[in-house]
């Protein structure tokens, strides 16, 4: 009961399709996960796995058309986001839930000053007048490590890392309960990545908010997250606490992900990439989507959609092979 109260976000059987003229892309299939208050969930997966769509669904921002939320619930603080009106949604966006996008170069409107862009959120949610909002915006800039007087400048006058700081400032301006960070560092230089990540961690602690961190970088996950969910072809194929996933990964795909990481300790070791490509999302196989690439796959995997199997604690995995109680995947030790 106590735990239930602590749940900030509860996504239940979410299904999202992109309905194009002559075909349908099943972008998110029956996705369920929970985020606790103040905790960080890492959402991992390849490009096109449906991570961003899932995140956008939380803000009800999936472009429609072609995006259609087919089913499921997204409970934010006990209320279903999907049942909210447009107007109610604008009160949630930026206030309750904020989002940071992948590419800081394109996430800022080039024709407004960064100060104005931060202030806009404040004016909407905090009922501040223009002057006060701008002042607060300058404070926010200071918080993310940018001199306040630069609020009068335009995005093109900032570097990539600085822009991402501005984006973070916008996202945090109204003190949201949940921050969704969609690959916040992917487009940045490696050195800047660390700075930005540190900033985010620090601010998260400071404001006590929960966070969903979308990334394909397991290193970042290990550093930042409390829980992890792994997505493949629109499904969450494995989820659990950081330790559960990192120490006892169950799904062959998760395993493959770890195997494809470079081993920094042993530079001579060759990477083991997962063979093959993700399936065409318009023509997903009937059974397990990973089956064609899975070294453990059996005929039954191809025909039958796997169910989520509970492995104790918060650890779930979607793999039919575990119906065979003796099934284990071969592990290599991961050094982090």
């Amino acid at each position, binding site marked *: 009961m106590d735990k239930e109260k602590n749940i900030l976000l509860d996504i239940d059987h979410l299904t999202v399709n992109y309905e194009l003229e002559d075909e349908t892309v099943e972008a998110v299939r029956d996705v369920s996960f929970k985020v606790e208050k103040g905790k960080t969930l890492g959402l991992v997966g390849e490009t096109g796995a449906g991570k961003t769509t899932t995140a956008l669904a939380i803000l009800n921002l999936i472009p429609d058309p072609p995006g259609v939320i087919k089913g499921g619930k997204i409970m934010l603080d006990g209320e279903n986001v999907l049942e909210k009106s447009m107007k109610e949604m604008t009160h949630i966006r930026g206030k309750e839930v904020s989002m940071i996008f992948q590419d800081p170069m394109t996430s800022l409107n080039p024709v407004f000053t960064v100060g104005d862009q931060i202030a806009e959120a404040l004016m909407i949610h905090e009922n501040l007048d223009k002057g006060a909002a701008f002042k607060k915006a300058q404070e926010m800039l200071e918080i993310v490590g940018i001199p306040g007087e630069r609020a009068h400048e*335009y995005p093109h006058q900032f570097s990539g890392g600085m822009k991402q700081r501005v984006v973070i400032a916008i996202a945090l301006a109204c003190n949201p309960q949940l921050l969704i960070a969609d690959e916040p560092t992917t487009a940045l230089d490696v050195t800047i990545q660390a700075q930005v990540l540190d900033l985010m961690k620090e601010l998260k602690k400071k404001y006590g908010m929960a966070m969903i961190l979308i990334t394909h970088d397991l290193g970042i996950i290990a550093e930042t997250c409390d829980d992890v969910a792994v997505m493949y072809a629109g499904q969450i194929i494995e989820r659990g606490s950081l330790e559960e996933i990192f120490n006892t990964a169950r799904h062959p795909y998760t395993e493959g992900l770890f195997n494809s990481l470079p081993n920094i300790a042993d530079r001579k070791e060759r990477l083991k990439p997962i063979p093959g490509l993700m399936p065409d999302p318009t023509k997903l196989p009937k059974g397990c989507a990973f089956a064609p690439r899975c070294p453990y796959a059996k005929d039954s995997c191809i025909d039958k959609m796997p169910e989520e199997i509970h492995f104790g604690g918060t650890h779930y995995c979607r793999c039919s092979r575990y119906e065979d109680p003796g099934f284990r995947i071969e592990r290599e030790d991961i050094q982090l």
Partner: protein
Amino acid sequence: MHRYVIKRILLLIPVIIGVSFMIYFIMDLAPGDIITQLVGEDATEEQIKALEHEYGYDRSVFYRYGKYMLGLLHGDLGTSYITKKPVWDMYISRLPKTFWLAVGASVVAIGLSIPLGIVSAVKSGSLVDNSCMVLALLGLSMPNFWLGLLLIIEFSLNLGWFPSGGFRGFSSVILPAITIGTGHMAVMTRTTRSSMIDVIRQDYLRTARAKGVSENKVITKHAFRNAFIPILTIIGGQLCAGIGGAVITETVFSWPGVGRLIIDYVHQRDVPVVTGAIIMTTIITGVIHLAVDLLYAVVDPRIKGKYSRKGVKRVKKVRKEAA
């Protein structure tokens, strides 16, 4: 910035020379010259000779053109053969009327096209989109003189809301402005639509939405401002076309504008008036283009302060893309 402006103005000079040369010679080529227009029905040989000498028609066209350009060098646009008035005076008395018409037409075009274009872009591909585009095309596909006369019959005769023609205050601008403005609609709506479609897919709109900006504001504030440069180019172009005079509409509405000035005097082979008026049109057009380029910087801060050599190229590129 100043250097840029000066350079642009200097660049107008060869264009003016080219335009004046072209118009002067084409006009001279036209059958029927001014002497025939001026002399009486039974003018004597001496009278014709005297007139030919007076207007330089006893010498080659190059002499006449040279003389005209020499005058132009001193800021003299020439003197009308027909009215004997300085062309400058004739042009200047027409310019305000044409200006008001051009502005009115732009206001009509902007007022109708931008909402249509935005709706079209937002609902891109839908029935609404198609209807908006057809609506915008209707204005273009109705020949101006037809639409103009229909408007006069309906709004001037039957309803008595507006005067039937002539330049008589604000209310007289409305009908001709609608006539021209609806003709501009197609291009402007189309530009607004495609420019908005480009912008609507940009990430920063998602950022705006994610921070709780309402959908209306996302479109009208965030998206539109970014989509505005190509639209500004079109507005500038249509304003320029308007300054050159809307011959047809001016004729239908007895509008004493530049377009009618030029065509009336083309018909009478009054070379200085035609050349002078077209030179003035060229200059004003050039200035409008320059103003539009400078306005880009107001709309888009990325262009500001880039009116160096590089900046100019950038502006040109933006314009080309818009076109």
